[in-house]
């Protein structure tokens, strides 16, 4: 097991490094520096600015400094757009917001998705099953950027129950719609996966044995069938996590929640390269770490995987 974890780590760490290097090179291959503007700066001023941000050094030096700063101090450097703030400040401001509604969405999707899938499977071909299947098929074409306007249309414009945007420190009425919009399509996918996986497990021989010895249904489902059912669901958690982090960009834009997504898009529109890079790298590291955890969890649950 430890060897397996080490092996996965030996892949994850270079991946993070490659991500940093690629985004750094991309940033530097952009035409024009971060301080080129329509009205050109006096040469001496430009020189001073470049010297201040270390842009006059050779590129490998800059890259080394950048990577070193991230590794040793988790320092993403200064923002090129907001003179008085570092990228760390910007991320520290937006990340807690994203983390809050992201975590809730993830919990909601996993918890309700698996429950819905299990209920649909043990009540196969009943009304409940059709309802669950119908829901999960329709939610496939309702990604977050479609859900968000529909939710606002219903709950803000027509019913007037919930505010159409804002965050206000994360009070419950501001969190509900972002969480639903973000989690719906993943909830549906997880429900579909769980249902088909549970049906397969329920038809296998060891479940028949369990039934034959007279176990009540809840025991069969929870003690015997649940673990093998969840294996494909666990391997879907990685992509779901990536999808939700990506989706947070839409949520932040649409609901003005002020998470990292809106900072990212504003950075993109303002060509604030260091902020975009910082967020890209942060998200990349999160994703890779999460995938690593999922892999380890998978290997721990499934005894058939041994490397």
């Amino acid at each position, binding site marked *: 097991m430890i060897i397996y974890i080490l092996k996965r780590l030996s*892949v*994850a760490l*270079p*991946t993070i490094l*490659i*991500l940093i290097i*690629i*985004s750094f090179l*991309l*940033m530097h*291959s*952009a035409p024009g520096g971060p301080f080129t503007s329509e009205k050109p700066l006096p040469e001496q001023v430009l020189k001073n600015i470049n010297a201040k941000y270390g842009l006059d050094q050779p590129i490998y030096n800059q890259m080394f400094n950048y990577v070193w700063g991230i590794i040793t101090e988790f320092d993403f450097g200064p923002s090129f757009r907001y003179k008085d703030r570092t990228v760390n400040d910007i991320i520290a401001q937006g990340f807690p917001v994203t983390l809050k509604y992201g975590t809730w969405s993830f919990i909601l999707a996993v918890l309700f998705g698996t429950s819905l899938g299990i209920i649909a499977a043990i009540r196969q071909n009943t009304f409940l099953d059709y309802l669950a299947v119908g829901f999960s*098929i*329709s939610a*496939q*074409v*309702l*990604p977050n*950027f*479609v859900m*968000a*306007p*529909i939710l*606002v*249309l219903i709950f803000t*414009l027509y019913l007037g129950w919930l505010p*159409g945007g804002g965050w206000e420190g994360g009070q419950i009425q501001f969190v509900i719609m972002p969480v639903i919009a973000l989690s719906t399509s993943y909830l549906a996918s997880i429900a579909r996966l769980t249902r088909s996986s549970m049906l397969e497990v329920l038809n296998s021989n060891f479940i028949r044995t369990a039934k034959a010895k007279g176990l009540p249904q809840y025991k069969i489902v929870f003690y015997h069938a649940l673990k093998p059912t969840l294996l494909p669901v666990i391997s879907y958690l990685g992509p779901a996590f*990536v999808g939700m*982090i*990506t989706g947070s*960009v*839409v949520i932040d*834009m*649409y609901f003005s929640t002020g998470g990292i997504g809106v900072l*990212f*898009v504003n950075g*993109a*529109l303002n*060509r604030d390269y260091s902020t*975009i*890079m910082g*967020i*890209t790298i942060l*998200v*990349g590291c999160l*994703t*890779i770490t999460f*995938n690593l955890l999922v892999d380890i969890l998978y290997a721990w649950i499934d005894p058939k995987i041994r490397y």
Partner: protein
Amino acid sequence: MIINKKNIEDLSKNFSESGGIKGRSLWYDARTRFLKNKAAVTSLIILSIILLFAFLGPLFAQWSNEEIDWTILGDISTLGMPSFNTGHFFGTDELGRDLYSRVIQGTKISLMVGVVGALIAVFVGTLYGAIAGYFGGRIDTIMMRIVDILMSIPYMFVLILLLVIFGRSIFMLFVGIGLISWLDMSRIVRGQTLSIKKKEFIEAAVATGVGNFTIILRHIIPNLLGVVAVYATLLVPGMILTESFISFLGLGIQEPNTSWGALISEGAKTMRYGTLWQLLFPLFFFVVSLFSLFFIGDGLRDALDPKDR
């Protein structure tokens, strides 16, 4: 023993009249299975109607997609409503442009992005996967490790990074989408190649001295086409979703071009002012087309992929 004599006679008569039994090819079987799938066939019809709408729709349009109807400007929420009298069948957008023409334009572009993205995935992914799978060994390990690494990168962020740095254009959008779309395909193709390359006909080709790349192009790839076709169809909605996502953020398609994502985004921004049709028309086309594409993909998979039967 009960033998229905009449049936047997009928049968023999049928045989002699039809002049031998027709062979049933794999594709014939697949087509029959596909046609039996009601959801898939209905979806195919609906998608054809949408395609017809995209290409024949302009014939009925009273306004082009770039003309601004100055007479209604300033009072869009009442005068810009969908109506036959003004010639704006779907109403107008916030700038007084005809939404009917805009939706047609967006439909064309979205579908094009989907198809082109899937085609890139087919070309790159098939070749990449087939090469990795056929050569095996260290080449395979390295090539698939690269795919693993690329897959674990949050591509949407990198895609936006690309669009920001190299400018927002349809071309860059295609490059960016093409960069990530082939990854899944290459994995699937590699898996299939691994099983195909152990077959006798490959061995025969090797024994007669056919070159490696000729074997891949002439013998392996043609045998992969069924699987590739299925996943390519399933990729189309995925590509459309990706493009719509980016356009929704305002980072994708730029004016005067538009796509479903961009139209939904505009509609979502203005729905507070009582111009609901600006959201609902693009949304309708988006949802219905994606539904159809998913069902067609599923139907094709059931028809062509022997595993799930």
